[in-house]
């Protein structure tokens, strides 16, 4: 027992270490900015309006994303069809698109000059006009519906297939299955998913502004940006960042309070087969859901791809080293994400039954990074590092590190439920066999969390590939990454080449995501 205790302490230490690091990165950088400013200054009417708008659009976006994701995930979970794997991967693409690429893709389909608008006009209707609150929500759903779908899908796949078989044996219909199996799962997954998307939308800025139609759509992040560059008022920036943290804290606490622990029982990891939903109605519903979702998400992507293909010949040679740099950053970021997320998730999963507050606190640390303003993290790191080292030399490592931290919430959302399940269901057996340390991790834990880990690593890789927030502050002009190149192309009138770069970026991000995600699922599917 002594060894077991030591083992727990050591891995818990790594978990606390990861949590402390995240707190330092998000709250510490804020502290550095506030320190440089010499305090915090007050908020004015415009700031309050920005806070109101931020909360309203984030709530609407999160509600809609989650509400739409549930039927999509259910359809994906209970249907097997040719191309399903490809669809699941492609549906993940919007989440990793750079903002400007996504906006131009969305406008190609839903904009005033889009095919739909042209058709509407020729039929005597007015052109589509998505600018305003609806445009902001549309774009945020476009970005986040895929993430929500993936998190719910993982929830569904975590229900052991034996349960569905038992349900079928008991003659349960779809409604019974929903009540006994699916709803308890949703109760566990939904609050965290909702909170994650809410937080992502809170820190949104360029999307909200561009599709929001004007300064009515000012978010807190834009106000922070203004404080930095228009007013150079660091104290205002720090205060606004603190407000952003406050909102996050509320969302995180609510999510944690609302999460209902569920016991699902143990299974043998067999693939799921369903007998309850083969009726014409259910099949039609699922087919319709998947078709509409695919159209909504994939049409803008297709527009990006089409424009990109035309622009590929215009790409300069310097795109190659930029792409290689981005891949290096992405791989490093994926590695860092796993080495931060695994110990933290393990610690949280092991703490929870006895000390829920501590587990909540640790999980909160994992959320901190998406609550943090990217602008404040970047500036804080800049202020802290500038006296010590040339920021340009740290551009790529810092990008990898910050993006690893930004990917952590998603990694935790995927890993914690999987780890809890493993510990609860197989932990006692492993204990009784005296399995511990690396052997326990390798034989018991890893095979069961591989899909979640692959997803987390893939997401981290793809997200850091498209990062422009941190790299813009630390940028080394001679070592541009792919997204930086893309923006430079656009800034130099090279729109065609920029479209080509966008396609390359999306392609590489998806390939990395697919590689990790697939790598995680290959064993799981067998």
């Amino acid at each position, binding site marked *: 027992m002594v060894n077991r205790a030591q083992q727990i302490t050591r891995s818990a230490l790594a978990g606390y270490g990861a949590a402390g690091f995240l707190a330092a990165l998000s709250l510490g950088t804020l502290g550095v900015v506030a320190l440089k400013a010499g305090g915090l200054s007050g908020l004015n009417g*415009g700031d309050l309006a920005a806070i109101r708008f931020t909360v309203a659009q984030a709530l609407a976006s999160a509600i809609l994303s989650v509400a739409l994701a549930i039927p999509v995930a259910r359809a994906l979970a209970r249907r097997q069809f040719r191309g399903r794997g490809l669809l699941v991967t492609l549906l993940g693409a919007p989440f990793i698109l750079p903002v400007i690429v996504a906006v131009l893709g969305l406008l190609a389909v839903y904009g005033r000059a889009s095919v739909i608008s042209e058709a509407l006009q020729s039929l005597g209707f007015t052109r589509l006009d998505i600018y305003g609150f609806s445009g902001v929500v549309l774009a945020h759903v476009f970005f986040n519906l895929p993430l929500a779908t993936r998190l719910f899908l993982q929830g569904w796949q975590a229900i052991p297939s034996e349960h569905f078989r038992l349900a079928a044996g008991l003659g349960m219909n779809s409604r019974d299955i929903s009540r006994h199996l699916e709803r308890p799962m949703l109760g566990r997954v939904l609050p965290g998913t909702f909170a994650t998307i809410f937080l992502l939308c809170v820190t949104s800025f360029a999307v909200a*502004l561009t599709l929001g139609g004007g300064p009515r759509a000012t978010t807190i992040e834009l106000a922070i940006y203004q404080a930095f*560059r*228009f007013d150079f008022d660091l104290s205002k920036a720090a205060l606004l960042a603190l407000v952003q943290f406050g909102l996050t804290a509320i969302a995180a606490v609510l999510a944690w309070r609302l999460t209902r622990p569920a016991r699902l029982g143990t299974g043998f990891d067999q693939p799921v087969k369903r007998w309850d939903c083969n009726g014409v109605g259910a099949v039609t519903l699922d087919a319709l859901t998947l078709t509409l979702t695919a159209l909504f998400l994939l049409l803008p992507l297709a527009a990006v791809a089409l424009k990109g293909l035309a622009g590929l010949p215009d790409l300069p040679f310097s795109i190659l080293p930029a792409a290689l740099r981005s891949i290096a950053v992405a791989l490093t970021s994926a590695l860092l994400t796993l080495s931060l997320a695994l110990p933290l998730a393990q610690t949280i999963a092991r703490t929870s039954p006895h000390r829920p507050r501590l587990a909540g606190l640790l999980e909160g640390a994992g959320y901190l990074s998406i609550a943090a303003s990217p602008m404040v993290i970047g500036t804080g790191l800049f202020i802290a590092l*500038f006296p010590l080292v040339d920021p340009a030399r740290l551009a790529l490592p810092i990008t*990898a590190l910050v993006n690893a931290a930004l990917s952590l919430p998603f990694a935790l959302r995927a890993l914690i439920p999987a780890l809890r399940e493993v510990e609860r269901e197989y932990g006692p057996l492993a204990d009784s066999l005296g399995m511990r340390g690396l052997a326990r991790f390798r034989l018991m834990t890893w095979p069961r969390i591989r899909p979640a880990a692959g997803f987390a690593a893939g997401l981290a890789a793809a997200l850091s590939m498209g990062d422009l927030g941190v790299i813009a502050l630390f940028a080394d002009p001679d070592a541009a990454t792919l997204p930086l190149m893309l923006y*430079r192309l656009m800034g130099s*009138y090279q729109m065609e080449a920029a479209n080509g770069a966008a396609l390359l970026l999306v392609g590489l991000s998806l390939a990395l995501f697919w590689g990790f995600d697939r790598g995680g699922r290959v064993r799981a599917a067998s």
Partner: protein
Amino acid sequence: MKTPLLAAGLMLALTGMAPAQDKPILNIYTYDSFVSDWGPGPAVEKAFEEICACDLQFTAAGDGAALLARLQLEGARSKADVVLGLDTNLTARAAKTGLFAPHNRAMDENNLPVKWDDPLFLPYDWGYFAFVYDTTKLARVPYNFEMLASAPDDFKIIIQDPRSSTPGLGLLMWIKAAYGDRAPEIWAGLAPHILTVTKGWSEAYGMFLAGEANMVLSYTTSPAYHLIAEQDDTKAAAIFEEGHYLQIEVAGKLAASDQPALADRFLEFMLSEAFQSIIPTTNWMYPVGILKDGLPEGFEPPVPPAKALLFSPEDALAVRNEALDEWLTALSK
């Protein structure tokens, strides 16, 4: 766990090694598009290094406003010797930091539409803000702000946010300079025609090229880009009777520079033919100097100097908060 070690190794590899240097280094901070492969940066670096026996190193930071913010963060410890890329809406703030040193230089004969006597900053190029449109799609082109305001409801323009973009701030100044106290009224008239406001120039111009709006806020020189680089003569700038607000881009030497002589030499070079002739077809702005071979096709300034609008740096700083409030009020209704 081997992964953190491996990660640390990778990070080291990514950081790279600093190259050995014997030549003096001139550090120039500028905005991002200046150093891009299509910007003036590469040609400027090559031309100056041929004559200076030095190593010119650029550091890029977003745009003009981001550049100033970066300098303020770094303070006197900045390694920058020269900052290139501020404009006259920013120079009063920049001067207040006390980080810049006088250039002690008189301007030669030049083609700036206004007289230049700033002791800290020297101009290297300039342009007029203007709305750009597609000649094949727009028949009735507005020739002043009031006509734009009274256009049909579905006539849309895209502008940039003054809080995050230099052209966006330029439009604020343009309307303030042309209409003074009537500015809020003009903004209220424009509000229904503003399709959206973007973070920066690239987003707005990209959306315009995608056909989302009738006009976009850009420069009178934008059509020259399409004409020269793409042989496309369908873009034009709408010329407004009120006159056009100027953007004058400037550079300054830092007081704390450890290469003050080299910095002076660069400023000298900046005003020479070698630098100035690079500007038109890379930065797509009017050069400050008078070029030997004249300006490229499509580059004749379409506005007589008498119609050039510009606040002095001090006035620009004094009016900008009021102008921003008026803008926010008019567009938030």
